[in-house]
């Protein structure tokens, strides 16, 4: 314990004493999120909402009222049918059209569950995703309120069916915040870890450490702990920035998000460790890590939607950890899905973590 403690303290000293390292670790992530976030993310206030109400009754009126009262939405008009609603989107009179079907109220009362259509202007995908998320949250709240006032148990559920015009897939893949998280965490964990281990090789201190009674596992853990801690701080910082500065909604489970982020951190750290066993110079470690970042940008779905890639590239993408992480974060943050809907992503990442950790530990020991 004493050994590990001394070593971890030393690692933190290395980090805190190097201004450049500190900048990369703590300033870069904030700058990147702010840059992409502010430029691309939406002013979600003043969403101009048009309503198409084919159900025409008290319940739909109550739902519409809630939207009208909400500070993020304001009602700009109504349309008689969905085609007219679409027209309002197309000629820029509205940002979102809420369409209640003919049987909305009936279904809601009888089966406690009804769906409502959300038409969005998808040309600004990020903005559209945020707007949809707000509408979704509001619908959830409205359904609960209605069930409470009417004393209905089990509660009503209003399912939004989102349809983005001009961009049918809504390409929420374009979402920079989840993408950025994937990239930043990979950068910090893989690059900084591998560089810090390789620096010891270059300086000759690794020889001294290996000739000491320090077990290799302690060396590895001590090297990884600081970057894990710092990445975690970054994760929280990014979340706080998203919520309070970018006003991005966090729709899903925070615990699930933290859980899957930790798995992704382990994957990235293991990659850093693996790189450090393959190269001998800090420069080579840096180049190899950057080579990890490039597929992270192009194949994670951050810049190009995976669905629209050629099949071969989709297969390539499935080997990129960030692809799974970004998908899960998008689902959890923006779409607010239940935990079981990210099971596949979690499983893939966990498998990657397991394989990479065993592989890097094996090679690290072999290279002693």
């Amino acid at each position, binding site marked *: 314990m*004493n*050994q590990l*403690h*001394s*070593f971890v*303290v*030393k690692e933190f*000293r*290395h980090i805190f*004493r*190097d201004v450049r390292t500190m900048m990369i670790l703590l300033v870069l992530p904030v700058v990147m999120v702010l840059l992409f976030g502010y430029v691309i993310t939406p002013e979600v206030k003043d969403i101009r909402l048009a309503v198409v109400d084919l159900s025409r009754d008290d319940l739909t009126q109550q739902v519409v009222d809630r939207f009208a009262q909400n500070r993020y939405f304001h009602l700009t008009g109504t349309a008689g049918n969905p085609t007219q609603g679409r027209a309002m989107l197309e000629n820029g009179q509205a940002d979102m059209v809420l369409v209640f079907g003919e049987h909305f109220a009936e279904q809601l009362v009888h089966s406690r569950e009804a769906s409502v259509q959300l038409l969005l202007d998808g040309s600004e995908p990020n903005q559209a995703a945020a707007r949809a998320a707000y509408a979704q949250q509001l619908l959830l709240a409205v359904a609960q309120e209605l069930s409470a006032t009417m004393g209905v148990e089990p509660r009503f559920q209003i399912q939004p069916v989102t349809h983005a015009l001009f961009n049918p897939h809504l390409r929420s893949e374009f979402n920079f915040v989840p993408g950025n998280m994937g990239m930043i965490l990979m950068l910090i964990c893989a690059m900084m870890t591998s560089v810090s281990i390789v620096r010891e090789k270059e*300086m*000759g*201190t690794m*020889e*001294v*450490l*290996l*000739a*000491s*009674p*320090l*077990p290799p596992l302690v060396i590895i853990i001590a090297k990884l702990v600081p970057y894990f801690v710092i990445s975690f701080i970054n994760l929280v910082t990014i979340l706080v920035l998203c919520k309070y500065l970018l006003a991005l909604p966090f729709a899903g489970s925070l615990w699930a998000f933290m859980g899957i982020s930790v798995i992704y951190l382990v994957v990235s750290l293991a990659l850093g460790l693996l790189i450090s066993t393959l190269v001998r110079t800090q420069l080579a470690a840096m180049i190899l890590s950057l080579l990890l970042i490039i597929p992270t940008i192009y194949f994670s779905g951050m810049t190009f939607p995976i669905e629209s890639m050629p099949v071969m590239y989709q297969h390539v993408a499935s080997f990129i950890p960030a692809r799974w992480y970004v998908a899960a974060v998008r689902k959890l943050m923006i779409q607010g899905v239940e935990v079981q809907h990210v099971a596949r992503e979690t499983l893939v990442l966990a498998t990657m973590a397991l394989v990479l950790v065993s592989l890097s530990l094996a090679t690290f020991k072999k290279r*002693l």
Partner: protein
Amino acid sequence: MNDNIVIRVEGLTKQFGNFVAVNHISFDVSQGEIFGFLGANGAGKTTAMRMLCGLSVPTSGHATVAGYDVERQPELVKRNIGYMSQKFALYDDLTVTENLRLFGGIYRMSRRDIKLKTRQLLTELNLTNERNAMVRSLPLGWKQKLAFSLAIFHEPKIVFLDEPTGGVDPITRRQFWEMIYRAADRGITVFVTTHYMDEAEYCDRVSIMVDGHIKALDTPAMLKQMFNAPTMYDVFLALARQATRG
């Protein structure tokens, strides 16, 4: 000579594929001895030394260091040795005291011992005023002395020095050897590789490796007599000329 043998090597061999880096070497080193381990580049010194430090597993043969088998008990070996590499591997961005505290921690010394020994060592090296200076700001000679002090900070039975005086001026080298003598007087066995033949003269006994074999092993005086050579330099040259590799 002495019953107090701290390094015992018997038929130690290391093979990488078809290449025999260290070929069946055998020798003993006694406690408190300064043992010079000489050889041209590529003769197999570093490989042999790595095996003795428990960093590399022998292909065949045996070696015990401080009474422990290097192959079966490398952890116990490591606990009883100190190691100084050619690069005076200290952490540049840590202060003198922080470096000492780190290695004290790694060798599981108690907090009190670390404090006590740090004060003692700083006085001895005249570094008390520089104790909070970053190691990178120290002159090379001081770094080297500090690295040696670190290698014996935890009072090991044996200290392995891998070309410890590379790039250092003759005066500092002289002072460095005085430190080595003081350590040997305290009973620490010194196992040192070097390319400087004047340093070979300072050793109690010297072995000379050529192409993976130990070609000569004796006191400097005996070696000079044996090879009918005026200096260790001539002894070394006579032997190293036989080398076919390197």
